[in-house]
């Protein structure tokens, strides 16, 4: 009933105020761009502009030519899930170097450490939907706690 009411309200709004109805979209909504309308005298300028990301103030400034991870000079371990999860998609796949902007060595190192963290079950929420979310429910030897030594990573800084 509530949905029906909302629909009728929206439909009536669309009829009386045609400009404010942007609730219907035929393609996937990504919210990357925003339609802005500017009126200068008699001319109406409608433009699609990129929206600034919400977490822009959290971005670490990098004024050097080094990659973002090298520039911070951090010694990242496989247990630093808050850092590693930034390089991942929601299904736990590593983002390509084109997106992460890491140098070749760091990209390799991070991807190995991500694999370590996943095997240790430290990021169970960043996994394919078919995965068992709780590491304790895994099969056989995989259910027991495992840790890794970063010195065993082939790619050294």
């Amino acid at each position, binding site marked *: 009933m509530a949905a029906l009411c909302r629909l009728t309200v929206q439909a009536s709004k669309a009829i009386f105020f045609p400009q404010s109805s942007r609730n219907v979209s035929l393609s996937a909504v*990504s919210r*990357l761009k925003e339609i802005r309308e500017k009126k200068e005298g008699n001319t109406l300028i409608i433009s699609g502009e*990129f929206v600034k*990301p919400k*977490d822009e103030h*959290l*971005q*670490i400034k990098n004024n050097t030519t080094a990659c*973002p*991870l090298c520039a*911070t000079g951090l010694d990242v371990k496989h*247990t630093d*899930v*808050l*850092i590693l*999860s*930034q*390089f991942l*998609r*929601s*299904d736990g796949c590593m*983002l390509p170097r*084109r*997106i*992460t*902007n890491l140098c070749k060595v760091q990209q390799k190192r991070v991807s190995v450490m991500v694999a370590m963290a996943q095997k*240790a*079950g*430290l*990021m*169970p*929420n*960043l996994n394919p939907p078919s995965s068992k*979310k709780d590491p304790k429910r895994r099969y*056989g*030897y995989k259910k*027991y*706690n*495992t*840790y*890794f*030594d970063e010195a*065993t990573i082939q790619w050294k800084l």
Partner: protein
Amino acid sequence: MSIIQRSQQWGTFARIWHLYDAKWQDPYLSAERIKMYLMGLYKPIYHPLNDCGDHVVVINSYDIALRGDEWRRRAYFHHTGYHGGASWTMAWEVHKKNPTMIMNKAVYKSMKGNLQRRYSMQRLHIFKDENVPENIMQNISNQIKQLRPVPLRLDEIPPQEVAEFPKLVKYPENYIAQ
């Protein structure tokens, strides 16, 4: 003998009970630490013939962490004494049968095979979880520091903290994050 000297005497020769939380700890590295307390090696009065070892209570032995792929690579050997009686059991299978056995064997192996070893092992109390009998728990007066911090799971960190963590990756303008 003054009261201070009396309490010093008592503190020197009393058996102290230590607690060790084995959660996410390597049993083989922890054994080297536990051994110091079991044998009394950390005491200035230590001597091999001086019976000055302490008690150590190890809890959460189910949650020990082995390095890399050791759960399926490390084998425990046993021989029944009969022909063909040899068997090799993987660490995870041993742990499935008895969650205290790996910790127990690690401490046993870390000590030298002399006559004192069996008596030192009698002072080691291992529990698979945090349920320790009350009569043991009330003796404890010291906690041994863990070798490595217990790692945080991403899904157990509050979402607010995850959202407000400084960002290293800057997506390109037209990139749609999945």
